[in-house]
């Protein structure tokens, strides 16, 4: 009886091990294949350079993200991803308080994206911005 149990266990371990050796790599490959693809970071035009004065700003779409593009008083450009770093809601500019306000949990950010209050711990993400042939270009990431 004990021999039979041992034989059965050995057979179970042998075939179970072999099946795992075949199925596990296949399952891993399929899981990775089905996960969202690594797409090329989007780059979007944000209008002519001369059309954005010092202190001016605009909201544009970069890929599927909403982005805030602004020019400082010293003439430098910067761009922020408007997704709140707390829970991902889109923040809105509140002109009266001169700050970004998140409608979901009252997170507050300055015009430069720094945290002013509420649950967020991190500033708004910076996006790459450059002027190419007189056009402002905003990019999600580097290559």
């Amino acid at each position: 009886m004990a021999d039979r149990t041992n034989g059965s266990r050995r057979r179970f371990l042998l075939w179970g091990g072999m099946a795992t050796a075949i199925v596990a790599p296949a399952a891993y490959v399929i899981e990775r294949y089905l996960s969202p693809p690594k797409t090329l970071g989007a780059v979007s035009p944000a209008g002519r350079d001369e059309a954005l004065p010092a202190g001016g700003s605009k909201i544009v779409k970069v890929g599927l993200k909403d982005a805030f593009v602004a020019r400082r008083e010293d003439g430098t450009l910067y761009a922020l991803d408007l997704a709140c770093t707390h829970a991902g809601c889109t923040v809105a500019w509140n002109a009266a308080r001169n700050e970004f306000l998140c409608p979901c949990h009252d997170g507050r950010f300055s015009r430069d994206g720094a945290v002013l209050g509420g649950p967020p711990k991190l500033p708004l993400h910076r996006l790459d911005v450059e002027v190419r042939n007189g056009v402002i270009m905003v990019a999600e990431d580097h290559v």
Partner: protein
Amino acid sequence: MSEEHAPYRTGSAPEHATAATPRPLAPVLAWLGRLRVPQGERTIWYYFGWFTLFLLGVMIATGTLLSIYYEPSAAPATTIDGKPMLAARVRAGTTLDRYPPGTIIPIPYDPAGGELLVPPTLRAAVEVLRDSTTGEPIRPSGAWTSVEWRIMREVEFGPLIRSLHAWGAGMLFASLFIHLFSALLSGAYRRPRRATWTTGMLLLLLVVGSAFTGSVLPWHVLGVSAARVATGYAEHGLPLLGGALASLLRGGTAVAAPTLTRIFSLHAILLPLLILGVTALHLLLVHAAGLRHDRDAVDGARGTRRGARRMRSALALASGSALLLAIVPAVTGTFDPGSPYIMLPLAILPVAVAHLLATLIAGSLRTDAGPAAATGHAWPEEIPFHGRWIRRDMIAWTLGFGVLATIAAAAPRIVEGTAGFPIDLTRPTPPAGHVRPEWYLRIPYELLNMLPGSLAMAAIALLLLALFLVPVIDPDGRRARAVRVAGLLLLALSAALMR
């Protein structure tokens, strides 16, 4: 249905089914244990039918995965936020990891300003592909972008899945051709297996149709040229039905966007369903009429001698395949899975090794059924499906899939040169040069090249008709010699045309 012709027969329950400990899966295992299948383990040819079926499963699984990302659209591709795209080639000397020199990639651009909407490092590394006559940029289709870019560049393991599908098709045809010729030369088409042969021939046609439609789907120069040539030959070479058939396939007067939709529908839905249906019928007929090779397995001392001879044949096949796999790359300078002289030995080798292994592991392979007189069934010997049969065939399948996965990982499927360029239906198609289809589609292709259109179509039709009618020409073995000679001639012709 009589007992002799029942598709699945039941025998006495195996010992383990009566174990005292109740198990939830016990009834299922007991049923599987009672399921008997014909045994054909003493001949290597037996394996190729099952190996073809297994590869069909691989094709369905990988095809399903590919369809998740494939976009059957000939319209110009756009980004997920709707920006139009241009085709660009990575310049020589570029050292970006994700973009090897020569790769053609879709690049989003700003239609207002004409700027390429990619980061500066990538923008500096690419040149936009332009039409050679008008100089206009090429806009890749959604289909090309989904295959050559999304699956091949953006999706993890995408190249592996695509290569498994592409090289799997080659291995399936290798196994299928061996299966077909072994049946033809051994007389397996005769009574009572005539219907089995007919369904096998139907399967061959359906699989060829599936391979052709699959080659069009990437919507590159090679695929679109294949669609144009095939529908053109049908239109001008097939009397009466040719025009209607070409028009049905194209969805109009020329190969365009509707053609891709139709081809996709055929490749992904209609043909797989037909293949599954005819395969089920083929298997039922195998069960009803048995296997040709079983006859020798219970033929007493004569059968034993034949069994030993076939063991030696398997050993010779394994050695020959291994030798070919060593010699061909050495002579040609490349290991090209797209060559029949690589793919055929790649299909034979695991099967031959599995056959040898299975025969050597004698304990798990001895038949546990009596001779024909004892079973009283259409085939002389049978073994349980669950357990013995699965274990034995799993060796061949696992080895075969291991070989396939290795070549898929080592040699990703890439269509090189102009043949792989994207098609922009608003621009003239670039010349594809001398584009040849995959080796398994070359028999009709070369016949069409060598003979005038109508004559070539007549030759193909006659060849197919002759193959379909083999069981009628030689129903009982009286014309065996003539059929065997014709079969060998066809084998030689096929080998010459596929080269």
